[in-house]
């Protein structure tokens, strides 16, 4: 008995953490399992296993259209936010300038403002300016809240860059443009890629700000919100599950390759 007690004492944290991680996965598992439900009308009760939802995913009205709309908005907002945010990140690390505190605060505030306030504010602005809500207003809104996250992500990469590498480029008579394109940009690329992926993920899953600024335009989360009242079709679970698996595989592969790179480096140095 005492041995069991000691074992538990020793491994409480391990057991707790394993259970906590399992708990976090419960709704994911639920969503994936119900993508295989032979649901017909309502996807609430389990009626048996089928692959039909996966093979005829676009049959449910509006699901695929909204998914394509979300991808389009995500790509546009990602390109805009990554370009604007990367420029700011470089300026923040490389230059001293006045109003630095104000700029930092302006970048921090959108991240600290509740989404409902960001959404209502933009909607009030579009309303008073007489701008018609649609895909464009959604892209403008998403770009706005992604910029700060891009700055945070890319800034870390710029700060870890060894200035000696750029100096070497200049010593070899590289013009500022050449040094940037051949040295700085390739070194920043992993940070820029990470920022772009983060932007895309934020844009893809945004509902609150989208709901205020989309008018008749329907993104995937907005589709889910309107469908929630009458029941989500199993096809929506299929899309969400597919996105989940693609994202998780992507993360795991990039982690494994980073680990392999670290190992190679360690061997080279050791």
């Amino acid at each position, binding site marked *: 008995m005492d041995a069991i007690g000691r074992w538990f004492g020793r491994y409480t944290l391990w057991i707790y*953490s394993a259970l906590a991680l399992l708990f976090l996965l419960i709704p*994911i598992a639920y969503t994936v399992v119900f993508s295989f439900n032979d649901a017909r009308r309502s996807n609430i009760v389990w009626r048996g296993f089928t692959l039909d939802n996966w093979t005829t995913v676009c049959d449910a009205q509006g699901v695929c259209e909204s998914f394509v709309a979300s991808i389009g908005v995500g790509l546009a907002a990602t390109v805009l936010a990554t370009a604007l945010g990367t420029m700011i990140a470089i300026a923040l690390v490389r230059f001293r300038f006045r109003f630095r505190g104000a700029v930092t*605060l302006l970048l921090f505030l959108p991240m600290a403002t509740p989404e409902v*306030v960001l959404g209502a*504010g933009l909607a009030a602005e579009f309303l008073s300016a007489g701008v018609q809500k649609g895909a464009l207003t959604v892209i403008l809104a998403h770009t706005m809240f992604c*910029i700060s996250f891009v700055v945070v992500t890319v800034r870390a990469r710029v*700060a870890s860059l060894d200035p000696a590498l750029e100096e070497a480029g200049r010593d070899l008579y590289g013009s500022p443009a050449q040094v940037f394109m051949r040295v700085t940009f390739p070194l920043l690329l992993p940070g820029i890629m990470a920022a772009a992926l983060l932007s895309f993920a934020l844009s893809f899953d945004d509902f609150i700000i989208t709901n205020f600024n989309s008018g008749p335009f329907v993104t995937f989360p907005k589709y889910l919100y309107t469908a929630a009242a009458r029941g989500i079709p199993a096809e929506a679970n299929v899309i969400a599950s597919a996105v989940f698996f693609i994202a998780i595989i992507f993360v795991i592969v990039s982690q494994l390759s980073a680990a392999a790179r670290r190992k190679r480096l360690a061997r080279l140095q050791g």
Partner: protein
Amino acid sequence: MAFGAFATAGAATEPVARKRSKIALILLLPGIAYLALFFLVPLVSLILTSFQTPSELAFGEPGVYDYAFKWENYTDVLGLYGEHIFRSFFYALLATVFALLFSYPLAYFIGVKLRRFPLVQALALTLVIAPFFISFLLRTLAWKQILSDDGVVVTALQGLSILGPEAHITGEPIAVIFGLTYNFIPFMTLPIYTSLEKLDLRYVEAGGDLYASPARTFFSVTLPLSAPGVISGMLLTFIPASGDYINASRDFLGSTKTPMIGNVIENNFLVQQNYPAAAAMSILLMAAILVLVGIYVKKSGTEDLI
């Protein structure tokens, strides 16, 4: 910072410095102008809208307002929705406390105990952020089904006589608080993990060497050293939770018993077209958040904000 020396070297000759500050301006201007246009102007627009009065020229048609200085809009919404404001902050506070209690041991485990196993550590972190990869709305709907009246949880609790035969979970405040807690747990776990991952274990050993009990060492060494992560985690949880309206919505985990500030803003803006009331509520929420953020900025300074 290493680049400080870099910048002063450039500033030694005046024309070079001017050229450099021009580059800085070119880099900053587009993004800053964008944020001014789509973040600052909307806030001003909200303030102006919050003082608007129904237009007399509209002859009772809803959704048409004139600019005015009708500050009574604020006293009106405070009178009408005082309960919602209190409920939002109360739910968000409880969700923050629960998320902290849930996350700290997990973050400690991943950040300290798993240090020896980098690959397992990376996998555990991936699992923490895994909920982000599935739609926020679907996660919440999944919980709605799991916690529904015929679901496993309610049936089991009724079997154990913890819940009465007529009791519900969904639609009750507890379901909304649960949903808020679940949805924002990664925002709490990640910053705590980040500060614990850097924790120098020699400080903890020193506590033991000085005959402090494990509890004493935790409260006087580990916890204070991880305080920055705990504080940013609490802000990152409390802010989105207080403005959320998905969890409290009738179609998700809430009911007519649970509306929060976000539901009031959404309903007034998008359904009733009562823009001044929605704007006044938004400004009140923003003001409350700014007070919190202000305290945080005062403590941490602007340089470490982002």
